[in-house]
C-alpha cells in the first residue's frame, strides 16, 4: 500500500492538514524523511510508530514549532512556513509532556490558553465550565494544578487545547504514562470529539490507534510505511486473518505436511500459525491427526496491527 495513496484525502476539497515530502534532520540524524499526509476534515487520524520513528518531529513541523528542511505543510490551507500565524489560529496542541501552569488553578490555565487564542472572556468562561464538567475536573477547579494527579493534569492539558474550540486538534501521545483505567477514560474523551474536530493523534500504543482512529499511518525510521483504515492495513497482510493451531506433537514431518498445502504455516510456541483467509480447518485436522498430532484448539483470528508492523518492517513492535 502506498503511503501517499493511503493517506490521500477523499471526497475533494482542501484537507484540514496536509504535508508533502516533509523532511527534517538533526545534524546527521534524519528524523523525518519525506512524509506525505492528507487528513480530511472531521477525521481522527492516528500516526502510529515506535519511539524515535519521527512522529513528534512531524507534529512539531505541522504546528509551526520546527522548520522543515524540505517539503511543505499546511493547516486548513495556511502554509506553516509562510502563514504560520493563521495556521496557529486554527490549531490546538496537546504536547507529549503535561504542559500546564502548575501554580495556576484549572480556571486560570483555561483562561490563559483561551486568551492566547484570542477567545473573548465570556466564551472562555462558558467553555471552561463545560470542559471542566465533562472532563471531571469541576470539583477541584479552584485548586492549583500542582496538587492534581497525573491523570487530572493530563485531562486539564486536553481541556486547555479544547477551550479555543479548535478546528484542528493535535494530540501527541495523549495517554503516555497514564494507568490503563485513565487511558480508557481518555479514549472516551477523544472519541467524543470525533467528527466535529479534525484530530491528528500520535501514539505508540497499537490498541489506541486501532480503537480510535478513522485512518492510521504507520511510521518507521522517519517514513510512512503504510496508511489506511485499521481493516485495510490488516487485510493487506494475507487477507487479514490468521488461523491459530494449538497442538501437541507437531514435529518436522507434521510441519512439512502442512506447508505442502499452506506454505505460509509458521511454527510458534505451542503450535502453528497459518496466515491467510482460505484456511480449511477440517483439512488442517485431517493433515495433522494421522501424524500423531493432538490438536488442543484451532480457530481463526484477525491479524493485529502488531502483525502488520512486523510484516512491513521485519521488526517486533516494542512499546
Amino acid at each position: 500500500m502506498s503511503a501517499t495513496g493511503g493517506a490521500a484525502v477523499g471526497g475533494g476539497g482542501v484537507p484540514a492538514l496536509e504535508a508533502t515530502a516533509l523532511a527534517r534532520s538533526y545534524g546527521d540524524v534524519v528524523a523525518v524523511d519525506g512524509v506525505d499526509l492528507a487528513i480530511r476534515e472531521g477525521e481522527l487520524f492516528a500516526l502510529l510508530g515506535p519511539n524515535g520513528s519521527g512522529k513528534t518531529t512531524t507534529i512539531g513541523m505541522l504546528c509551526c514549532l520546527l522548520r522543515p528542511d524540505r517539503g511543505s505543510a499546511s493547516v486548513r490551507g495556511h502554509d506553516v512556513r509562510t502563514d504560520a500565524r493563521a495556521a496557529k489560529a486554527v490549531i490546538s496542541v496537546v504536547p507529549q509532556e503535561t504542559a500546564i501552569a502548575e501554580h495556576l488553578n484549572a480556571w486560570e490555565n483555561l483562561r490563559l490558553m483561551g486568551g492566547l487564542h484570542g477567545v473573548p472572556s465570556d466564551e472562555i468562561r462558558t467553555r471552561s465550565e463545560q470542559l471542566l464538567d465533562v472532563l471531571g475536573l469541576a470539583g477541584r477547579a479552584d485548586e492549583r494544578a500542582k496538587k492534581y494527579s497525573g491523570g487530572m493534569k493530563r485531562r486539564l492539558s486536553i481541556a486547555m487545547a479544547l477551550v479555543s474550540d479548535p478546528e484542528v486538534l493535535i494530540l501527541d501521545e495523549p495517554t503516555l504514562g497514564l494507568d490503563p483505567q485513565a487511558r480508557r477514560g481518555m479514549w472516551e474523551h477523544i472519541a467524543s470529539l470525533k467528527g466535529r474536530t479534525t484530530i491528528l493523534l500520535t501514539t505508540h500504543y497499537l490498541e489506541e490507534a486501532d480503537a480510535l482512529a478513522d485512518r492510521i499511518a504507520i511510521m518507521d525510521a522517519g517514513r510512512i510505511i503504510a496508511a489506511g483504515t485499521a481493516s485495510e492495513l490488516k487485510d493487506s497482510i494475507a487477507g487479514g486473518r490468521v488461523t491459530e493451531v494449538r497442538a501437541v506433537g507437531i514435529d518436522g514431518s507434521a510441519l512439512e505436511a502442512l506447508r505442502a498445502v499452506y506454505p505460509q504455516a509458521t511454527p510458534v510456541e505451542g503450535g502453528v500459525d497459518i496466515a491467510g483467509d482460505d484456511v480449511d480447518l477440517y483439512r488442517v485436522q485431517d493433515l495433522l491427526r494421522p501424524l500423531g498430532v493432538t490438536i488442543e484448539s484451532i480457530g481463526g483470528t484477525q491479524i493485529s496491527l502488531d502483525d502488520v508492523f512486523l510484516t512491513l518492517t521485519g521488526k517486533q513492535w516494542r512499546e
Partner: protein
Amino acid sequence: MRTGQLARRNLKSLLRDPLSLGLALVLPVGMLLILIAVGNAVGETEAPWMTATVLTPGIALFGYVMLMFSSAMALSRDRDSALLDRMITTPVSASDFIAGYSLPYLPVALAQTVVLFVIGTFFGLVMVGSVGLVLVVLGLMAVFYIALGMIFGTTLTVNQVSGAYSAVLLLTIFGGAWIDLSALGGAFEAVANLFPFAHALDATRAVMAHGAGLGEIASDLAWVIGYTLAAAAAAVWLFRRQMIR
C-alpha cells in the same frame, strides 16, 4: 489582550512565590542599610562614597539585577517545560511574549525604587534635582535589566542563568554601584564606561546631588536609552528565533 493574558499569568507566578518577591524587596533594603551603616562608621570625610545619596541609585540597580535573574529564570523554566512550546503554538507574536513576560516585573522594580529612596531619605539622601528625571533614568535601567533577563531566559538553561546573573552583578558593581569608579581609574573606568551602568549612575547622582537637568545628562541618557532599546530588540529577535527552530 494576548500580552495581558500572559502578563497576568506571570504576575500570578510572581505573587505566588512570596519568598522570591520578598527577597527582591528585602535584600536591596538590607544592602543599603548595611552600606550606609559602614559609611557612617567610617565617616563621610573618609568615605564620601558611602552616603545615602551616592549609594541609593547603585543599590536600586542591584535590585534590578535580582529582577533580571527572576525574569530569566521564569522564562528559562518555561522553556524547560512543555508549556512555552505549547504557548508558542498559539497565534501570539514574539513581541507579545516578551512584553507578557516582562511587564509583571516593572511594578516590582518601581516598588523597589520607591522603598529604597524613602529609606534613603531617612539617612540623609539629597535630592536637589528632578525626582521625575531620576525615575526616568532608573526606569529605563529597570527595562534594560528585564530585557537582559529575557535574553538570558530565551537562550540559557536554568543553570546557566545563574552564571549570567553573576556576570551582570559584577558589571553593575564595577559600573560604580557601590565602589568609587574614579578611584579605580584607568582601564577599569574606561571599560566601565562602555556599559550603561556607569552612565545611569552618573546621571542619577548628578541630578540628585547637583540638580543636573536633561541637557547635562543627555550624553549619559543616550547610552542608557541605546542599551535599553538594543536589549529589548535583541530579546524580541532571539525569542522569534526560538519560536521556530
